[in-house]
């Protein structure tokens, strides 16, 4: 079984359009297990019940933003080790710096295509 078949990815985005696009791209890459959450709070709840290898989260969300979500995940021993890729509309230095300080694994700037997403994932989990 390849990594693609086993990788569990949680997509966090408040916009259903964005979730749809990300799922579309992940499926194009061949990822089999994709879970969805529309807020950071929901993501935390889901991860408590259903661990994932990797979280792909939007930065700008109502309530908890992507960096706050990352902070939460890193603060909890159960989710500390989860991979985290931040998706941002703007690669703002400040956002990237705070992501770095929490041990963000990678970031992806919008808009992106399937190839961008693939490279971004491969930089974290190895060849897909």
């Amino acid at each position, binding site marked *: 079984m390849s*990594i693609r078949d*086993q*990788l*569990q990815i949680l997509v966090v985005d*408040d*916009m*259903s*359009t*964005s979730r*749809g*696009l990300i799922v*579309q791209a992940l499926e194009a890459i061949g990822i089999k297990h994709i*879970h*969805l*959450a*529309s*807020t*950071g*709070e*929901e993501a*935390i*709840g*889901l991860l*408590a*019940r*259903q*661990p*994932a*290898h*990797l979280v792909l989260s939007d930065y*700008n*969300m*109502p*309530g*908890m933003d992507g960096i706050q979500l990352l902070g*939460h995940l890193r*603060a*909890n*021993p*159960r*989710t500390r080790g989860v*991979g985290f890729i931040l998706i941002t*509309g*703007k*690669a*703002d*230095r400040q956002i*990237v710096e705070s992501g*770095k300080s929490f*041990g*963000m*694994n*990678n*970031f992806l700037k*919008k*808009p992106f295509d399937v190839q961008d997403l693939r490279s971004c994932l491969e*930089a*974290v*989990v*190895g060849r897909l």
Partner: protein
Amino acid sequence: MTTDPMAEIRTSFFAECDELLESLQDALNLMDEGEHDSETINVVFRAVHSIKGGAGAFGLDALVSFAHQYETVMDEVRSGRLVPDASAIKLFFRAADMLQDIVRTTRDEQHPPPGIEDMLALLKALLHEDAQELDEPVAFTPLGLSLEFDLGAPAIDVAPAEIDDDFGWTITFTPNAGLYASGNEALLILRSLSNLGHCVIRCLVPEDLPPPDESNAETPLLSWRIILEEDVPESDIRQVFDFVNDVCQLQISPRKVIDDLAPTRPERISPTAEAALPPVGSTSAKKPAGDDACPISSAASKVSLVPHPRPARPVDTNAHEPATMVRVDMEKIDRLVNLIGELVINQAMLAQSVETAGMSQQSDIMAGLESFMTLTRDIKESVMTIRAQPVKSLFQRMARIVREASASVEKEVRLKSVGEYTEVDKTVIERLADPLTQMIRNAVDHGLERPDVRRAASKPPEGQITLSASHRAGRVLIEIEDDGAGIDRPKVRDIAIQKRLIAPDASLTDAEIDQLLFLPGFSTATEVSALSGRGVGMDVVKAAITSLGGRITTTSVPGQGTKFSISLPLTLAVLDGMVVQAAGQTLVVPLSAIIETAKLEEQNIHRLSASGMMMRFRQELVPLFDLGQKLGFRDMRDIAAAGIVLLTVQEDGRRAALIVDAIMEQRQVVIKGLGQTCGHIPGVAAATILGDGQIALILDPGDLVWGGASSPHFDTKAG
């Protein structure tokens, strides 16, 4: 049906844009009312940002570049580097309007609207020289992950208590009877609580919340669950509740993240609703916790808004759709509505056959049929509510009309919306947009005075238009009220005389003069202005409302303002009707048009000419018509022999009596359009299929008697 996933996502993007634009308007309204807290500004920013993000994914460049500039400005506001004044907020509104136009033209693949460059320049002018955002490449080295494919035990054995990711507090606050009576205010308490740290507040709304009114103002009906995301000593929290300790129930416990996701529902939850909840852990169906949570400031500001007509879903300033909602193609719903219509007809036919077969009332079949009928009615009502939508989107469009109209005539106007969560059939909402636009334009143009005139009359220079919606007696009532000068009746009368709509010496009551506004051809050339004089007069407005089965009335007080009231049926698909017979035809008269039925007696008939008759109804003489003759089914006959008259009424109060041969029954009928081929048949509104499979015409008595255009009413009084 589309199978291209990208096309589907694109469609859902534009649907999402509408929601984002709506939340953008809401947040701008709050800013306009003086709310400048970060969450309100964030909602504006996020809406624009999300539209930009989605547009980028589809390569919609015009949308991206406009949203980008708007977003940059809002980012400045968000960071506090730009403090918007009233004129800047006005500009934000106009930019939101422009953004909406660009979304629309992009969706419809049309040319972008004019004026984008100008608006971009205006937005840019708000920015400081050095505010140019830096989208420089940021150095970042990806962090590899060593993967372990045994992700541990599945969810079930993760007990909530094992999650040690708790910080902050969960507080449940339930006011007792004495809280409001002793002058305390929950809102203020929640505000001071939010001073301790970021709060996520959820209001627990009971399922059977009565509509708010004066008499229950001090009865506590709501309670709150607050998640305070801050590690403060418990005593600090207790201190906030110091003054209300004895008049409320308070629970304070260390926060568990798992609690945040627990469904926050009042305890009186019906078992059916409970059963309908999705299983915990199903990703797509789980309601996100953040959905009905809103930060203190926006929760607070919403409290001052108008009362909801029903306990709608919790106030939500976030535009994303709750995961428990499903988007459905309107076409599918319409098909369902049609099928239900067929079912209603079928059921009526079945009932009729069973009756004809001479079945005993006690038989099982009759009992079964009865419950079948109850079910059919329930299904029909449920389906109709699917088509219902809050009028909010319509009212927001009107807010834009007010902004544009008031700017073009240089008047200051504030639009107040009341009852925007009132739900109305989607088609009614769509078809209301044009008449309402015209009425709002009229109110700005003709209703409200110029600021100097208002000052002279010791009124505030800013005029107010109130747009309200409510449910009343099974109908929807929409009112447009201005605080302007009122209808200038002498002027209206003069114009009507000039236009030969009335005789020069006609003596008319105020109400009759007001009705002149609705006559075709009343709107005159001298009245034409850039704004409302577009050849669309109140007669067209009235025709549009009438075609929706609605009525329009007006009241006006000189110097104080004018109010137009539109009363509409809740749905266009079914109608309460009276099934009658005339000249061997079975016809349906809408119940809403009938005020009385009576026996026709010879001594009450007054013959005026060969064809004209009046009938005395109590103290009043009303025109009398034979329905069969009026529809051309038979010639004049000895009407005194016939039995029954229906007294019908128009929305303007005009009455007429219609002779019918018999009243069959009173029932709900499914409205079937006559289709384009028939065109407009005077007096006929639509058709329906009765229980015996027979087709029957649904009449429009007003149109039948007065034929829309001509108005014998005023002529008879003249001279």
